[in-house]
C-alpha cells in the first residue's frame, strides 16, 4: 500500500507540474491578453500601457518565473473586475459549486446504481426496458432546455420551488436534479452490464452454493466488485461537476465557479479566467488522486502491485 501511495502521489505531482506548464503555454498562445481585455475601440497606446503594466513585454522566462513564483505563494493575481485577489474570489465561490456537485453526484450515483442494479437483476424484463428508456432519455437530454421547462412548470406554474437563488435547501433541488440527470443515466448504463458481469462469475455461484441469500450476494459481493468499475466513472463525473456547470449555474443564478467563469469571460477579466482555470484543474487532479486511493482501499489486488 505504501508503494502504491507513493507512486500515486508522485504521478499527481507530475500532473500538477504538467498542468502549470500547459496553462502558461495556453495563455501565451491564445493571443494578446491586453487586446482581449480592452474594449474594441482601445488605442494602440492603451494596449501597450496595459502590456507594460501586466509585464507582457518582459522576456518569456521572466514571465514564467513570475507566474510560477506567484503560484508558489498562492497568488493568482488580482481580478480586474472586482479588484480583489482572484484566489479569494474563487475560493468564495467554490463551496457553492462543491455543494451542488456533491448533492448532484450523490443523486446520480444512488439513482444510477439503483436503476442499473434493478435492470441487471431482471435483464430483458419490463423493468429493464423501462429503465433503459429512462436512462437513454436522461443521457440525451438537453440540460438547459429541460432546466428552463422545469423552472416554467415547477417554479412559475406550480410555485413549489424558487426559480433561482442560493442558501436554502429548496434552492438546490432543481439545479442538483438537472446536473445529476446525465451522470445518472451514464452510471445506470454502466452499472447494468457491470453487475450482470459480476453475477455471471463463478465466485457468485460459489457464494450462493454456500447458502448466502440473494440480497447478500448482490449487495456484499456483486455490488462491491462492480463498484470498483463504477467508482472510476462516478469519480470522473464528479470531477466534471466540480468544474462548475456553467450553463446550469447561470440558468439558476447559482453563485458557483461556473457562473463566475461565465461572468469573467463576459467582462474579459483575463487574470480571473486564468486563475479559475488553474483552480478547477487542480481540483480535478486532487479528486483523481482521491479516487486512486479509494481504489486501493476497495480492491486488495491493486494495493499490492
Amino acid at each position, binding site marked *: 500500500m505504501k508503494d502504491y501511495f507513493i507512486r500515486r502521489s508522485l504521478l499527481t505531482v507530475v500532473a500538477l507540474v504538467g498542468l502549470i506548464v500547459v496553462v502558461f503555454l495556453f495563455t501565451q498562445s491564445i493571443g494578446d491578453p491586453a487586446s482581449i481585455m480592452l474594449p474594441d475601440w482601445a488605442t494602440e497606446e492603451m494596449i501597450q500601457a496595459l502590456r507594460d503594466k501586466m509585464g507582457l513585454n518582459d522576456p518569456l522566462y521572466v514571465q514564467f518565473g513570475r507566474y510560477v513564483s506567484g503560484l508558489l505563494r498562492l497568488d493568482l493575481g488580482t481580478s480586474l473586475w472586482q479588484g480583489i485577489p482572484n484566489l479569494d474570489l474563487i475560493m468564495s465561490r467554490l463551496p457553492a459549486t462543491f455543494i451542488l456537485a456533491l448533492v448532484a453526484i450523490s443523486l446520480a450515483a444512488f439513482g444510477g446504481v439503483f436503476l442499473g442494479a434493478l435492470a441487471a437483476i431482471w435483464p430483458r424484463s419490463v423493468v429493464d426496458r423501462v429503465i433503459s428508456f429512462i436512462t437513454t432519455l436522461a443521457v440525451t437530454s438537453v440540460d438547459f432546455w429541460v432546466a428552463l421547462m422545469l423552472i416554467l412548470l415547477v417554479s412559475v406554474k406550480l410555485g413549489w420551488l424558487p426559480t433561482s437563488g442560493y442558501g436554502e435547501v429548496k434552492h438546490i433541488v432543481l439545479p442538483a436534479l438537472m446536473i445529476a440527470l446525465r451522470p445518472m443515466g451514464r452510471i445506470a448504463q454502466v452499472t447494468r452490464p457491470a453487475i450482470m458481469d459480476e453475477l455471471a462469475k463463478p465466485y457468485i*455461484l*460459489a457464494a450462493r452454493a454456500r447458502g448466502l441469500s440473494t440480497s447478500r450476494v448482490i449487495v456484499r459481493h456483486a455490488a462491491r466488485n462492480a463498484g470498483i468499475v463504477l467508482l472510476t466513472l462516478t469519480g470522473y463525473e464528479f470531477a466534471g461537476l466540480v468544474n462548475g456547470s456553467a450553463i446550469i449555474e447561470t440558468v439558476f443564478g447559482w453563485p458557483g465557479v461556473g457562473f463566475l467563469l461565465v461572468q469573467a469571460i463576459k467582462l474579459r477579466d483575463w487574470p480571473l479566467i486564468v486563475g479559475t482555470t488553474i483552480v478547477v484543474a487542480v481540483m480535478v487532479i486532487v479528486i483523481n488522486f482521491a479516487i486512486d486511493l479509494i481504489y486501493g482501499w476497495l480492491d*486488495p489486488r491493486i494495493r499490492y502491485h
Partner: protein
Amino acid sequence: MEPVIRVNDLSTYFYTGAGVLRAVDGVSLHVDPGETVALVGESGCGKTVCSLSIMRLVRPPGRVVGGEVWFEGRNLLDVSERRMRRIRGDKIAMVFQEPSLSFDPVYSVGAQLAETLVQHKKLGRREALRKAVELLKMVEIADAERRAASYPHEFSGGMLQRAMIALAISCEPRLLIADEPTTSLDVTIQAQVLELLSETSQSLGSAVLLITHNFGIVSRYAKRAYVMYAGQVVETGPVHKLYQEPQHPYTADLWASVLDLDRPKKTRVLPSGKGISDLVHEDSKCAYFPLCQHRELECERERPELVAVDSSHHVLCHRVHSGGSVHVKQ
C-alpha cells in the same frame, strides 16, 4: 441403507433462441452415506448442470423442468428458497473447478470462511474467524492465522483449492459435490488436493459426488460411477465393471480413447470421427446413435430405456436386454 441423496428422472432444459437444449434429460442417481460416486463425461454432457440442478442454482435461461431430488426426507425441488438456503453450504456443500475464480477477490479468505459459518452455525464474527483459522489448519495450510487474513490473489491455486475444501467441510456436510476439483491444478498438486478431499470426507463421513472427465481419477477414488452423455446417464455400475465389461458403446469408446500412462505408444484402436453430438437431440432415438459403431435399426426409431444388466449395473442401450450382457470392449 437409505441413500444420502436420490435423484429421480431429473430434467433441466435451457430455453435459448436456437431452441430447447436438454442439458439434463431424465437423470436418476443416488449416493449412499460415506460413499464416493463419480459422475463422468466429456465437457458439455450436462454433468455440471446436473449438480447445479440438485443445488437449485440453475440460472435462466435454464430451468429444472421435472424430476425429484430426495434429501433427508424432502424433495428439494419443492422446498422453499429459505429452507434451500439453509441446506446449501451446510448439508450439501460444493467444491468448484477454478479455485481462483470461486472466491470473491475483494474479501480475505478467512472472512469468506467466517461468512459461511456465521450464516449456518450462528457463530459470532470473532468466533467464526477463529474457527476459520482452525479449518485452514485442518487442510494443512501453513501459517493459518496470517493466511486467513490474506486475499485470494495471494494464494497459489493449490492452496486456494485447499481453502475451498475447508470452506466446503466447514459445516460438516452430509454430501459434498466436487465439480472437476483439480482440473486447473498442476499434476502433483492435483494428487495432494484429491488425497485431502478423500481423507477429510472420510473422516467426516460425508458422501462425495465427484464430477470429472478424468478416468484415472474415477478409478482411483470412486467405487461406483455414472457415465453421462448428452444429458443422460448412459451407463452406471461399479467402476471395475464399467472398465472390464462396458455395455454401452459410448463407455467403451471413452475408455479406448483415454491417453493413459498404462497404455504404451500405438497399441490401441480408436473409434473414428467421435465427438459429442449436439445437445439438441430428438426424443425419438438413441442420443449416441449418430456416432455409434454398433447401431441397429431400432436405435434410430426408439429411445432406449435403462435396463439392468445385474442389480448394480444399468445401461441405456437397445442392444442390452434385462439380465443379458453384450461385450463391446475393444
